[in-house]
């Protein structure tokens, strides 16, 4: 064996060992962390001093589709504030606001405003807040509402003027704020590999692998955490429904006749007393006398004044505590409260904790709409993983057999190179800390087939050279050298298309394209370097003299 060949051989052996260590991590100097639960360690198979030994199985981060989880794209929506000024006072006293809110809500109910608007009543001012993409849409809604208000209230309260609408636009500062709040919420879910990423101007991608209750998680993340204390009109009666399995006691409303009234109607008719932004960020979970969890809160000075004013004058009436347009609790005002209070009727401790996190992390400055949602259960993920692993294995074995059957000895060497190739691809994937997704596995399996191609080209050349009665050594050299341009040219095209897919593809396609790209590049290396080295080594042995072994 020549010195150069030996150097190459040692180099490749080192590479294989390194790849194996990277992919399987059998030897570690710190315990392995459980990929599903942040902060928890996996017990090692053995431990010698500071060295932890784990079974030599591939350890690769699996994507959402292989172990369950959610991938959502949230889009920030612009909102419009539409103020309408009345000539006469529509609600001279605070108590009138309740009635007025109901009247306005009723008027707007049949309008097509793309969603349920939120209404605010002041002495001479009605402010309607709703979703609007741009100024044009806001103005359109403004015209609709103005016409309806004039028609319904114009006779009684004189001329109504629409003031300049205010568009609460998504700005990059706001989206940064949103990202900050979301990060806090996502971290609170306690997932080790949650992904939070901004996409384009106004979108946020959230990936939560291994989550057990995706719907609940989404609810917490997306919650605008719009906490409001509203004054529920006297005409509505509050009833507590029996606790559902899980614990939360639902709040139900009925009118004077005893008919059930939908929650959204009650909310739109109830004026706001204080909003959640008037809370200090020190809410926490506590338990009431009967052991039910409650969330305690404290008002900032301004909120505290408003709350004091309300509770002092409305004893015996209902107060609605509303989170994201859902009444979580409706206590009766028993005493005047100035700064501290607690929210009851939340249900399980877990939900109470989520609520306190929401209150403390702050409200999202703009609402987020779900634009894309792909949820995969752990069952399906595992199923996909097992199936595609089998498919890959079967495919690989057929290719290995085919190569030996057709190309004999060189085929066997190519098979060895192919196994090195598989290790190398996984190692590179891991070094780039890419996660393995279902399309990613597909990419790898596909690239196995393509990796062999370079060898096929070389071996066909080799056969031709051997038939021309060359010595094996020179035939090997000639085969490799002549085949190189074709291999390079053809692989460049695959690389180009893979790069385009990484650039413009969706998350799933990217997973595929990345592994395909890594696969093609690695195959250029292994198919040429490793196979050539192995061929050189065999050409020095007695095997070289047996031409049938080369399929000639």
């Amino acid at each position, binding site marked *: 064996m020549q010195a150069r060949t030996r150097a190459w051989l040692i180099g490749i052996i080192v590479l294989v060992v390194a790849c194996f260590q990277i992919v399987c991590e059998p030897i570690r100097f710190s315990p392995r962390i459980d990929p599903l639960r942040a902060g928890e360690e996996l017990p090692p198979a053995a431990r010698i001093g500071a060295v932890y030994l784990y079974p030599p199985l591939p350890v690769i981060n699996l994507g959402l*589709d292989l172990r369950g989880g959610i991938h959502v794209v949230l*889009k920030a929506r612009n909102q419009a504030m539409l103020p309408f000024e009345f000539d006469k006072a529509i609600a001279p006293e605070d108590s009138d606001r309740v009635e007025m809110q109901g009247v306005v809500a009723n008027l707007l109910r049949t309008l097509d405003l*793309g969603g349920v608007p939120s209404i605010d009543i002041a002495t001479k001012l009605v402010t309607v807040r709703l*979703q609007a993409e741009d100024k044009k849409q806001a103005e359109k809604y403004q015209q609709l509402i103005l016409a309806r208000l004039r028609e319904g209230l114009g006779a009684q309260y004189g001329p109504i003027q629409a003031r300049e609408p205010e568009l609460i636009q998504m700005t990059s500062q706001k989206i940064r704020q949103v990202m900050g709040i979301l990060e806090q919420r996502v971290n609170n879910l306690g997932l080790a590999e949650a992904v939070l990423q901004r996409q384009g101007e106004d979108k946020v991608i959230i990936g939560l692998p291994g989550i057990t209750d995706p719907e609940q998680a989404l609810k917490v993340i997306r919650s605008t955490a719009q906490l409001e204390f509203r004054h529920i009109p006297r005409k509505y009666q509050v009833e507590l429904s029996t606790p559902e399995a899980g614990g939360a006691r639902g709040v139900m409303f009925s009118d004077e006749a005893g008919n059930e009234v939908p929650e959204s109607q009650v909310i739109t008719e109830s004026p706001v007393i204080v909003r959640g932004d008037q809370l200090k960020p020190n809410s926490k979970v506590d338990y009431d006398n009967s052991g039910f969890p409650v969330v305690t809160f404290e008002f900032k000075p301004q909120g505290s004044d408003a709350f004091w004013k309300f509770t002092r004058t409305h004893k015996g009436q209902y107060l609605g505590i509303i989170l994201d347009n859902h009444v979580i609790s409706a206590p009766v005002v028993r005493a005047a409260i100035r700064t501290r209070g607690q929210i009851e009727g939340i249900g399980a401790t877990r939900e109470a904790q989520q609520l306190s996190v929401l209150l403390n992390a702050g409200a999202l400055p703009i609402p987020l*709409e*779900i*634009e*894309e*949602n*792909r*949820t*995969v*259960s752990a*069952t*399906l993920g595992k*199923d996909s993983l097992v*199936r*595609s692993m*089998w*498919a*890959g294995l*079967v*495919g690989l074995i057929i290719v290995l057999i085919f190569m030996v*059957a057709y190309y*004999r000895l060189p085929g066997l060497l190519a098979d060895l190179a192919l196994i090195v190739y598989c290790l190398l691809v996984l190692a590179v994937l891991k070094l780039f800390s890419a996660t393995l997704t*279902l399309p990613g596995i*597909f990419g790898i*399996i*596909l690239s196995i*087939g*393509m990796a062999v*191609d370079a060898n096929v*080209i070389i071996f*066909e050349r080799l056969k*031709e*050279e051997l038939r*021309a*009665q060359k*010595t094996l*050594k*020179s035939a090997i*050299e*000639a085969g490799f*050298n002549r085949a190189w341009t*074709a291999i390079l*040219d*053809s692989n460049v*095209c*695959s690389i*180009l*298309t893979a790069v*385009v*897919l990484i650039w*413009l*593809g*969706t998350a799933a*396609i990217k997973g*595929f394209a990345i592994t*395909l790209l890594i696969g093609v590049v690695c195959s250029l290396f292994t198919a040429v370097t490793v196979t050539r080295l192995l061929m050189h080594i065999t050409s020095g042995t007695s095997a070289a003299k047996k031409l049938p072994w080369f*399929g000639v």
Partner: protein
Amino acid sequence: MVELFRGRKWDLVGLRNYWFAISLITILVGAYFFIHNGIATARREHRGGVLFVLSHGLNLGIDFTSGGQLTYQVEKPFSAREMTPALAAIRSDVERLGITAEIQISGSALGPKNQILLRTKTTRPEAMSEEIQDQGRRILEAFRARYPGAELVSTEMVGPVIREELVTNAIAAVAIGMILVLLWIMIRYDFKFAVCAIIALIHDVLVVVGAFAILYKEVNSPFVAVVLTVVGFSVHDTVVIFDRIRENLKLRKGATFGETTNISLLETMARSVNTVLTVLFTTFALYLLGGHTLRDFALGLIIGITSGAYSSIFNASQLLVVWKQREERKRKPAGARPAPAPRRVEAPTPRAIPAPAAPAKQEQQPSLVGAAAPPISGSAPGRSKAKAHKKKAKRKRRY
């Protein structure tokens, strides 16, 4: 191992009109189904216009139409006989809940059919995600009564904004991918080679799209990956053959372009077939053993890669021959080189070719070797181009 292709003297170039016809018919059948599907969709949705028909030739999935898809898994797989009654039962369950949905029972091709897929219609665009989650829960309750242990395993929802993005990106990806590949071939080969490779590539894309139109398989954004992978692979194949043609052109100065191409094709045939086989082994394994998600993906690749190999051998190279022959014929009247035999090879009627073609080759062979081959030593590692050519020439003696 049997060597199927060694020493064969098939006249692939001579039969080119047949190859073109096969391609053309395949594409036309696909196109018929494509337009047929488009018109059917337009009728169903009471829409019209050429653009609508052309953009609905494929069974577009939620990525391109926006909407929701729910996947349920049941414990006991459906047997082939249970399929139809089960579908009817599921449909009545879903309709009773007031939900409109397209329903499909699926699973892996060889494995159990234990998945129920529903593409549901939504009514509230402003709260699509919530509506779909709600539908998912209600349908699950209904299923639980019928199939104990049923599970909602996947909920997918694509809103209109993302849909638009997916459509734009899909079109851009295919366009940019193809342009880059075109540029690369233009750099590496001359213009004619590049044009022929691109035509072959478009052929493959049309075949895959046509096949999906015929089978009416659902198309989502991974289809873009299928198309571009097929593009990459098709060029891959074509390049290997062109590389050999280019090499042989230098060696066989006397031969016509048609002959050189034919020989190059036969020489690379084993490689073309083997490469496609290895890739097909793995994709077939995925098709048969993989789950529902990957099956259509694998199917697209199986069709596309087979078509890619076909078009490289039977379209790209043959087109090049047609083109070059036109040139050769134009040059001839000017009275360049006398080469009567090869000219006959290029006679347009395919059947006339095999007979004269073979003698023509035999005549030329000796002179070629004589021109190019002082004996070379076996041990030289042949790094320089000149040496490589000599070796090639020596090998040609076997022909």
